[in-house]
C-alpha cells in the first residue's frame, strides 16, 4: 500500500522538511516535492533541510537530495516552482494525497480548491508561533471555508514567527493522517480540526459541520 502510494508535498520548508523526512523513512513509493523558494538565513531556526552551507539553493532540490540519501527505495521528483493557476493541475494530478506544507493562507485556499476539482484528499496543516492546526480534507468537504472565514485574513505567523518545535509537531500529525489514509486504519480529522496550543498545553479537536 505504502510502496505504491504517490504523495505530493507542497512546500519544503518548515512543515515540509519534517513531512518529507518522515515519509521518506516510512518508505512511501513516490514523492513529488514542490517549492519555488530558496533557503534563507531566517529559515535556519526551524527548516530541517536548511543549513548555513545551502543558503540560496532550491529548497525542493535540497529536499530531493536528502530523500535519496536516506531512502533510495523512494522514487522522488522535485519541482523548483511555486504552485499557481497555470501549473497546479499538471503538478497535482496522479497523486493519491496532497500534503499542504504551504506558508500562506491564499495558496492553501487555492490548493484546497484544486484538490476538490481534481478529486484528491488534502492534508491541511498550518502553524503560527506556539499554535498549529491540522485537518484532512476530502473532495466535497467545506473545511477550508470554515477554517478561514475572512477573505482578507492575515496569518498570525507573520507577527509571531515559528519556533522549531511547532512545525515538527504539526508535520508529525499530518504524516500520521497520511499513513492512516493510505493504509485505511484508524480515524482521520475529516470535518474536524486539531488545534494545538503548545504555550498552554491545550490540544483539542473541534468538529466543523
Amino acid at each position, binding site marked *: 500500500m505504502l510502496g505504491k502510494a504517490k504523495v505530493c508535498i507542497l*512546500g519544503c*520548508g*518548515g*512543515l*515540509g522538511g519534517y513531512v518529507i523526512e518522515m515519509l521518506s523513512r516510512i518508505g512511501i513509493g513516490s514523492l513529488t516535492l514542490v517549492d519555488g523558494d530558496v533557503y534563507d538565513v531566517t529559515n535556519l531556526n526551524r527548516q530541517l533541510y536548511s543549513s548555513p552551507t545551502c543558503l540560496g539553493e532550491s529548497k525542493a532540490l535540497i529536499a530531493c537530495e536528502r530523500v535519496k540519501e536516506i531512502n533510495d527505495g523512494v522514487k522522488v521528483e522535485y519541482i523548483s516552482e511555486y504552485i499557481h493557476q497555470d501549473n497546479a493541475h499538471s503538478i497535482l494530478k496522479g497523486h493519491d494525497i496532497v500534503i*499542504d*506544507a*504551504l*506558508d*500562506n*493562507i491564499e495558496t*492553501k485556499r487555492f490548493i484546497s480548491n484544486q484538490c476538490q476539482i481534481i478529486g484528491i484528499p488534502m492534508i491541511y*496543516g*498550518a*502553524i*503560527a*508561533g*506556539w*499554535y*498549529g*492546526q491540522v485537518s484532512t480534507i476530502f473532495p466535497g468537504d467545506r473545511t477550508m471555508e*470554515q*477554517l*478561514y*472565514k*475572512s477573505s*482578507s*485574513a*492575515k*496569518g*498570525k*505567523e*507573520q*507577527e*509571531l514567527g*515559528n519556533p522549531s518545535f511547532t*512545525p515538527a509537531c504539526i508535520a508529525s500529525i499530518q504524516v500520521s493522517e497520511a499513513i492512516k489514509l493510505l493504509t485505511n486504519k484508524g480515524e482521520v480529522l475529516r470535518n474536524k*480540526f486539531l*488545534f494545538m*496550543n503548545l504555550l*498552554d498545553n491545550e490540544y483539542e479537536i*473541534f*468538529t*466543523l*459541520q
Partner: protein
Amino acid sequence: MKIKVRLFATLREGRGKEQINTYEDGTTVLQIIESLDIPVEDVAILLINGRDGLLDTPLAEGDTVSIFPPVGGG
C-alpha cells in the same frame, strides 16, 4: 442573556481564555466580536455551540461562541 466566549491563541491577549458576559437578547456574533475589539479579519474559525457558525447569527441564552485567529504558516 449570558453568552460564553472562548478565545484561542493570540485573541487571548488582553482578553483571557474565556469570558461570560451579559448581552441583549438577539445580539449577533458580529456584535459580540466588535464589543471585544476583535477586528473581523481576525476571526478565522467561528464555532457556535461547537458547530461552524456565521457572524450574523443572533445568539440565545447560554450559547458558547469559540473564536480562532488566522493561522496560516508552514
